[in-house]
């Protein structure tokens, strides 16, 4: 069940807000303090990538971030509305631009962002469909215990 959902227009200045919200919700969910930096960085990378994709494809819809507290894990989904981005099942974009060489710079940055995410997060899935791309990441949570 979703704990917090955030939708923001694809502007770089809002990525920081997404990072702060994600870190705050992760802390409440019981994600270890030592891991919060990773959560902050990973969600920032995923959001920056989504913002870049929306802007390069002229998409005005907002980027969506879903923060979910599960039984023993905390998960974050960052959803974009660009259908082709994924590596697998590259479906044609209805009315969109084709992923050609002209995007190579932007794609280079995407790849760096994804490299950082996969280096940071053990449990990460990147998928894409006709509705857009999703990066799903999750971290284990520990129940909050008081010091003796």
């Amino acid at each position, binding site marked *: 069940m979703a704990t917090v959902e955030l939708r923001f227009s694809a502007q770089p200045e809002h990525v920081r807000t997404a990072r702060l919200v994600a870190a705050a919700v992760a802390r409440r969910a019981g994600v270890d303090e030592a891991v919060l930096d990773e959560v902050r*960085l990973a969600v920032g990378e995923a959001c920056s990538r989504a913002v870049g994709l929306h802007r390069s494809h002229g998409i005005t819809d907002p980027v969506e971030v879903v923060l979910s507290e599960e039984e023993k894990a905390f998960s974050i989904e960052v959803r974009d509305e660009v259908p082709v981005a994924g590596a697998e099942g590259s479906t044609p974009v209805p009315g969109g631009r084709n992923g050609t060489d002209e995007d190579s710079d932007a794609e280079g940055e995407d790849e760096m962002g994804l490299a950082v995410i996969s280096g940071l997060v053990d449990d990460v899935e990147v998928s894409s469909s006709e509705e857009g791309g999703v990066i799903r990441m999750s971290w284990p949570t520990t129940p909050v215990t008081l010091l003796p």
Partner: protein
Amino acid sequence: MDLSLSTRNVSGPGGDRTVVEVGGEIDVYTAPKLREQLVELVNDGNYHLVVDMEGVDFLDSTGLGVLVGGLKRVRAHEGSLRLVCNQERILKIFRITGLTKVFPIHTTVEEAVAATD
């Protein structure tokens, strides 16, 4: 927190070095400011840069991209770009992307300024 930038020139054994002191967060929003600063320095003929990252609270791949771009520019003039960083959480990002092999990373500005190739 926003990005803060200040530059100063320091003389080292290998010649003049330009120290760029960066503070705050380098992300998709603020990285263009750092890019502009590095481009301007190189255009003005400063080819040996030391980027002091001790005041940086956050760095993401966009920031890494800007630093790599800076390195490319100074190298085109046979220059150098050295980093000063002791913060584990920032160093980790350089490690997981393999960029520790690309950038010389120093523990103090003095050490970076004194370094020669």
